[in-house]
């Protein structure tokens, strides 16, 4: 079977751009799970709610979808702080089953709130000037996807810098390494946790805004991005931002090559079967440091 090199290049580019976005989508989850050991099953549904919020702002304020992140991220930070204070703080250190149960509850609430308010109708933002494709010879890249990829990469880099270069980031990593010792060194764990959770939730608003550039908000986004993010975290292990970046890229490439070379209608199948096999063969992830 001969593979058209143009199709191949096109799908590799698509895979990389999607993969960057997937990494960004998983970043908040990785931060919360890696630092706080909190199992957040509702991660995907925060992305879904953020997508709806993006739609509301984009339409009512007549803004470009990607720009609304400036508004949705602070809102989600506050939302994250609220949920931390109201729910998460009470299940810190609880057994995994209780954490999963609680966040599954959160997932059901978020998803069905969206269903109750928006009646399962997919909502898309009006066409933006970013929808036009850029042509590089025979290869077309939609500007919105290119921007999505670049912004994702920038955000990943920014978080990496935040974690490695600032005092707060060092505190976060110290807690991830050993909570008790970090506490003895005078780190205010409660405060770092609250901010980390807020930041983790705020970080779901950015990929949601980028996704809305080319896709539509619907209540089912939650399951897809939720599982996707967990797959990336599983693959990346707890190896920091780099692991997340590589895992997202690998997943994006598997998905786009699978779709273009095998069968386009089995998209989820490639992702989930990769996940299944990965959990079996490398339960600690491909890029784990510990």
């Amino acid at each position, binding site marked *: 079977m001969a593979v058209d090199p143009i199709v191949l290049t096109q799908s590799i580019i698509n895979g990389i751009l999607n993969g960057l976005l997937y990494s960004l989508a998983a970043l908040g989850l990785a931060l919360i799970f890696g630092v706080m050991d909190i199992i957040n099953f509702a991660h995907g549904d925060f992305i879904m709610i953020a997508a709806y919020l993006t739609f509301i702002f984009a339409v009512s304020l007549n803004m470009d979808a990607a720009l609304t992140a400036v508004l949705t991220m602070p809102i989600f930070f506050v939302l994250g702080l609220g949920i931390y204070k109201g729910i998460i703080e009470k299940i810190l250190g609880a057994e995994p089953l209780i954490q*999963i149960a609680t966040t599954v509850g959160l997932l059901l609430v978020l998803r069905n709130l969206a269903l109750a308010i928006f009646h399962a109708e997919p909502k898309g933002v009006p066409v933006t000037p970013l929808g036009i494709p850029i042509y590089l010879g025979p290869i077309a890249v939609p500007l919105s996807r290119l921007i999505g990829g670049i912004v994702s990469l920038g955000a990943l880099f920014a978080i990496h810098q935040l974690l490695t270069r600032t005092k707060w980031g060092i505190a976060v990593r110290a807690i991830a390494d050993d909570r008790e010792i970090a506490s003895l060194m005078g780190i205010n764990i409660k405060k770092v946790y609250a901010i980390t959770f807020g930041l983790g939730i705020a970080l779901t608003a950015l990929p949601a805004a980028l996704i809305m550039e080319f896709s539509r908000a619907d209540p089912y986004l939650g399951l897809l991005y939720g599982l996707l993010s967990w797959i990336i975290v599983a693959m990346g292990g707890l190896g920091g931002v780099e692991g997340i970046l590589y895992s997202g890229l690998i997943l994006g490439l598997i998905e786009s090559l699978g779709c273009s070379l095998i069968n386009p209608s089995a998209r989820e*199948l490639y992702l989930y079967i990769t996940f299944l096999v990965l959990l079996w063969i490398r339960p600690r992830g491909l890029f784990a440091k510990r």
Partner: protein
Amino acid sequence: MAGKAKIIGTQIFGLALLAIILGLVPPALGFNIYYVLLATIALSVTIMVAAWNIIGGYAGQLDLAAPVYFVIGSFVTTHLLVFYHVIPWIGILVGALAAVALAMVLGYPTFRFGVKEVWYALLTAALVVIMQRIAWFIMTSYYFPILGSNEVYISQYIPEDANPWLYLYFPMNYTIYYYIFLALLVFTVWINLKIKRSKLGYYLAAIREDELAAEALGIDVRRYKLYALMIYAAILGVAGGFHIMMIGILAYKNFDPWLGIVIAVMGIVGGLGSIEGAVMSGLILRTIEEWLRSSFGAVIPGIHYLIYGIIIIIVAILKPEGLAAIINYVKKKLGLIQYG
């Protein structure tokens, strides 16, 4: 030995009480077709929760794949009936065996490689989606050209002069299905009680409390988790086979990831490892869900699932023992148990 006899006596009393109380439901509903159908679906869900109690409650594995084994039972039963004219009784048996085989094939590597906690939950959630896609493939590319539709309407494939009992085909008479499901529920509860007081049950409890310690004591953790998974799959496979004969329409969407989550939520709300709690939680929550859906569903879609979300958050934060705590309290007052 008197203690053991007393336990068995209490168990038989409990099972009989369950059968009698639930057996009175159809007459109480005036044999209204619609209400009896709803009650039968509630029983079907409760069977799933009771089966989940084995893997989730006893073994402590948060399995979200209940629809996988359930619909495998439905799928095999339907497939054999439609393409090979096999009566559902045999189809259900083969379906249950298929569900057990799948549980073994998936469970072996999963437990072998130590996939647990959140990863087990995610893996099983992904499994439902994988099965849904595979079913979609089979139904669009294999069923559609032959049957002319992506869904299978079972009543079309029942012979004209079929014996209704042989084909489990009782159109518009859900009362019979109700009693079939009631028998299945009583059987599932009995299996639960049997397991709880057996070697398997004690091993599973040890695994749930501390897997490493259980392993250190010489328990073959993998083997017993796999046993729990296979029993769970078998019950779900049988229930799924009966369920599809009642509902009559097989669609790939039957592999519903939300159903898996709801079953686990019900199991947790009932209290892990408490079969009484699981049954009560299944019956009560499913009834509340139906009431919410029929009263407000048209105005606020999704409200019935919203309520699950709120209930599970409250239970997990305030009362992780679930309904079992209340049941134990009542039992203590009645003098049925001393500790609990």
